[in-house]
């Protein structure tokens, strides 16, 4: 009896980690910069396509493509930030939503034009396939790897925001832009870097997601809803909150589908409604 429960919990955590990687960047940009970036998952998709292209057309090993996916998504986001997004930092939420949802539509069309609408093939190294058995619990290796990556990234992020000079600048710029500028902090530059890092993480998440969920041009839309749920449940701008919310949603989704298959797909929405009624700003939201 214990083994199936533990197995399902593990799958839930691993799925949550995937959601965390996809959504933490959005939590940062939305929470810190107050910018509603619905195109976040389009950057994740970009990372995915970078990995697919490098592996299939250039024969790169899977691991070598991951940093490139990160950098490519980050770089692309900086270009968009400099050319489009920054014009709307002071605009209304609706304007921001319209711009960024438009970018998602564009991303779908571009990806379909370049790669076709079929799912992209990818093959991860053999040692990441199959599963290992720990105390009778079946753990899929790739999911184990995901959990590991997400743990490392969480530690790095929390350290980066809480204990580095750059993190302090970002927090200062968010809390009071005018004061931060007055102190000589280059707020524009700080935001651009934070935005690039957030999108880069999405790119990495997109690359890591392919093995589990596949990649097609609609990625930017398919995962938008999950990512928004994680961000709103976790609370804007909170890395720990995103992690907690992602794990909660991941476990709710997987265990729900396992134990209550008829209800399974709706459970995450119930969880979201429940959490937001209890804490309207999310689990770790400050405002």
């Amino acid at each position, binding site marked *: 009896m214990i083994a*199936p429960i533990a*197995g*399902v919990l593990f*799958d839930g955590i691993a*799925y949550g980690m995937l959601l965390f990687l996809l959504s933490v960047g959005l939590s940062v940009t939305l929470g810190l910069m107050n910018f509603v970036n619905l195109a976040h998952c389009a950057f994740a998709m970009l990372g995915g396509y970078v990995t697919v292209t490098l592996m299939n057309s250039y024969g790169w090993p899977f691991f070598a493509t991951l940093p490139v996916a990160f950098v490519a998504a980050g770089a692309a986001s900086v270009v968009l930030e400099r050319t489009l997004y920054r014009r709307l930092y002071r605009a209304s939420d609706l304007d921001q939503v319209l711009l960024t949802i438009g970018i998602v539509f564009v991303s779908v069309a571009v990806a*379909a034009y370049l790669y*076709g*609408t*079929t*799912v992209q*093939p*990818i*093959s991860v190294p053999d040692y990441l*396939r*199959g*599963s290992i058995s720990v105390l009778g619990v*079946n753990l*899929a*290796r*790739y*999911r184990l790897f995901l959990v590991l990556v997400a743990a490392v990234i969480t530690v790095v992020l929390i350290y980066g925001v809480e204990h580095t000079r750059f993190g302090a600048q970002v927090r200062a710029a968010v809390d009071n832009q005018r004061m931060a500028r007055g102190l000589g902090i280059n707020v524009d530059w700080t935001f651009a870097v934070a935005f690039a890092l957030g999108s880069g993480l999405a790119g990495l998440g997109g690359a890591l997601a392919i*093995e*589990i*969920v*596949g*990649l*097609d*041009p*609609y990625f930017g839309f*398919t*995962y938008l809803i*999950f990512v928004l749920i994680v961000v709103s449940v976790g609370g804007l701008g909170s890395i720990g909150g995103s992690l907690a919310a992602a794990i909660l949603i991941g476990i709710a*989704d*997987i*265990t*729900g*589908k*396992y134990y209550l*298959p*008829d209800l*399974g*797909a709706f459970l995450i929405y119930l969880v979201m409604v429940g959490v937001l009624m209890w804490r309207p700003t999310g689990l770790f939201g400050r405002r």
Partner: protein
Amino acid sequence: MRGSHILSAGAALLLATATAQAADTIKIGLIMPYSGIFADTSTQMDGGVKLYLQQHGDTVAGKKIEIIRRDAGGVAPDVAKRLAQELVVRDKVDILAGFVLTPNAMAASDVSAQASKPLVIMNAATSIITTKSPYSVRVSMTLPQVVTPLGEWAAKQGIKNVFTMVSDYGPGIDAEQAFQKAFKAANGEVLGSVRMPVNNPDFSPYVQKAKDSNAQSVFVFIPAGTQPAAIMKAFVDRGMTPDKVKILASGELTDDSALKNLDNSAVGVITAYHYDHSHKSALNETFVKDYRAANKGENPNLLAVGGYDGMHLIYEVIKKTGGKVDGASFIAAAKGMSWESPRGTIAIDPETRDIIQTMYIRRLESVNGKLQNVEFDKAERVKDPVKAAMSK
């Protein structure tokens, strides 16, 4: 007075040319999702249509065939209906054809019924579509037609019990019911079943449930696209490889785009389907060779065959009727027609206007290092079981 004579003469002349043109040309309006998420399906289907025209020319029984293409853009019954109306009223097409998606085919069927225009369904696979218009005829398949023989076959092989997993939408539920019915009728036992959301990112809980049921076999139906690879990887990750558990499915699970994402751990998956490009026949070899040549080496799939056979049906009907393509004459000629398709011998059921064809049972094998669906058993002259049950 004189002026009006000239005018009416002119009008008569115009009318004469118009009718002459109408008599010499047969217009076919193709409605498919040329853009959007289903664009690749249209590429295949239209590829089949184009290939038929390329092989057989665009003139038949003295009539020139003219094709008018319209983009439905996805699941859009309203758009499909409007396009069908415009094609009939404005472009004066004689035949409506194409239809990848069920809702679009249903909507256009209304137009076909009202305007008495023949409607050739080249893919959309829900059983009841053909009952919507007395002038529609289908050359593709229905899902119950695919999975019923699979259920019977599985029981005959001595498989005692099964766990079924289907996507939670019309075709999935059709597949679940048809398979379970056939399997139970042959004394098989269904140990459990799940219906999975269509937009399902992670299959692990469902696969775990199937595993925990300890069933000898699993039946799967999910739409082609991102999902086949994802669910197969979930099976492999949990050690549910085909050497331990029989994995039974309709052919979507192992179509070409899915195979690119799978490796040898999927060898042994058993699927039922009406067409695979590896089918062995002289006609199919030519078909595949020509299709590849015209489409950058892509292999044709069921949609290409649907387009190809749809055009064949239209050509044969025109030959038989000498060019009469009003709804009643077209359907009268199409009923009972039988021909050799790249997938084998197929026929149009005179009672239901639906297709009768052979279902192949295939095993996924590694042939020269590449995964391939290898046919090893078959059920011949399979009719759509749903309409067969309705008429009883």
